[in-house]
């Protein structure tokens, strides 16, 4: 089956003052099929959101990109602004934003948001707008009684549904959810990601960017772990969260840090993206680091680690 989204060697560097560069994303590659949910996990500042911005053509002017990200025959990295605005945003890629309350225009009602988006993306004539708004709200389970409310009159969960309703209007084959559950409580997180999953089950591809491992576990088919701008592991979600568990030492440490597991942090902090070491970016924090780690590990069999072939990780205790 042809994937909905095909990303190959996607890199994003920011040019800084004094000729310095920040390598925010380095050689990311993955495919995403219709009906599938890929969770991209990693800590804040690892490059997850930059990757999302690259897919929407929303990078700032000092960004340099390389590689390809193809959806429906269009390379998102090579497309000009006109193509992005007219055929990509909302139409091929629907964005479910990080903080819906800030994403919505504060002086306009939810109905006004939906009407504007319907007119722009589907050309719905004025006399049919009312019915189309009701239908769009229903697809995201937004309560029809709240359509005439302003964003500040909505709870976090309601605002999230309003933003999702907007993202679904263009029938985009790819839904991009960038930290959609930040600041929500657990019940609301579960409801939000379950609803996103439902939209994937309707035949969309879902890229869920999150630092919430419980949310990823709940709905993802596959998990991509990002560390210091690189995807270091790409695994089936069942194997990642269950048996045999993650294979990259960073991913194992991240999972072990959960309060329901060992609750022990990975020692140290990630390197600065402006001063990445020459070799494996995780080596300084890794108890398995040796001379081999002076070279950047290549992604092989879904994991980028010089030591992933060594069969002793499931029984070895995770070091604090």
């Amino acid at each position: 089956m042809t994937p909905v989204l095909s990303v190959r060697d996607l890199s994003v560097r920011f040019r800084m003052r004094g000729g310095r560069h920040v390598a925010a994303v380095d050689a990311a590659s993955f495919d995403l099929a219709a009906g599938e949910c890929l969770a991209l996990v990693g800590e804040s500042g690892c490059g997850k959101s930059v990757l999302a911005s690259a897919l929407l053509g929303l990078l700032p002017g000092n960004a340099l990109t390389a590689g390809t990200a193809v959806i429906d025959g269009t390379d998102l990295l090579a497309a000009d602004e006109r193509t992005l605005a007219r055929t990509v945003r909302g139409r091929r890629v629907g964005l479910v934003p990080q903080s819906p309350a800030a994403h919505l225009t504060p002086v306009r009602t939810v109905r006004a948001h939906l009407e504007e988006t319907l007119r722009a993306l589907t050309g719905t004539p004025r006399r049919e707008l009312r019915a189309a708004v009701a239908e769009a709200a229903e697809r995201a389970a937004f309560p029809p009684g709240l359509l005439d409310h302003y964003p500040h009159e909505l709870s976090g969960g309601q605002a999230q549904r309003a933003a999702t309703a907007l993202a679904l209007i263009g029938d985009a084959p790819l839904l991009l959810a960038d930290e959609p559950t930040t600041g929500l409580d657990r019940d609301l997180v579960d409801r939000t990601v379950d609803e996103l999953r439902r939209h994937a089950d309707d035949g969309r591809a879902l890229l869920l960017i999150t630092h919430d491992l419980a949310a990823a576990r709940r709905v993802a088919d596959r998990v991509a772990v990002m560390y210091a701008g690189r995807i270091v592991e790409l695994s089936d979600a069942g194997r990642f969260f269950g048996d045999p568990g993650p294979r990259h030492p960073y991913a194992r440490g991240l999972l072990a840090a959960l309060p329901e597991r060992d609750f022990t942090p990975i020692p140290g902090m990630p390197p600065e993206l402006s001063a990445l070491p020459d070799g494996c970016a995780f080596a300084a924090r890794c108890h398995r680091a040796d001379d081999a780690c002076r070279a950047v590990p290549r992604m092989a069999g879904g994991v980028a680690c010089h030591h992933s072939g060594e069969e002793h990780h499931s029984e070895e205790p995770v070091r604090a």
Partner: protein
Amino acid sequence: MLELHAITAGYDPRAPVFHGASLTIAPGEAVGLLGPSGCGKSTLARVAALLHRPDAGRVVVDGTEVRRWRHRAPRELRTAIGVVFQQPRTSADPRLRLRDLIAEPLRATGRGDLAAGRVAELAAAVGLTDDLLGRRPHEVSDGQLQRACLARALVLRPRWLVCDEMTAMLDASTTAALVAVVEAYRRERGAGLLVVGHDRVLLERWCDRTEEWADRVRTP
């Protein structure tokens, strides 16, 4: 003891967010307060930190009843309580370098001469490098900024610490790291701890006891 007796509070006296909330924390004890979004638990945390005047009820800190709030609260009460909020971005002065952010409570209480030593000690504990200490908030990640906010909360060596959703924005490893710093401080100084949050698994793993919000308030 840090005692909250029958607190009613909110932002409009005619329509309080909650009524009659009571909670007592002993020195050295870690108490979790678990409740859903919007229930008022953060408002209660602000009352406990003397940052919000309740509409009714009493707050008693180590035997002294609190009569004045926020900047009017007596310094010896204010400085007895450290606070860490959910959003490090909105709780940090964007103009201050992290080392000055951490030292600010010392300078504000006339003990700026202790700043260099205390900042170095706390930076090591929370894992901030010298390079990071020299940066301003927009130049660091959420996790790094929250490390600085925790250091700032501990710099006056408070007897009580209030953590309001301290880790909600953070990844699993940074969460575990910051909780470990709080726990080391609690063991070392015998400080009491109020942890407000919505993550049952986290609170039950972290705290000595976890209270349900619904059991601590009176239904009006």
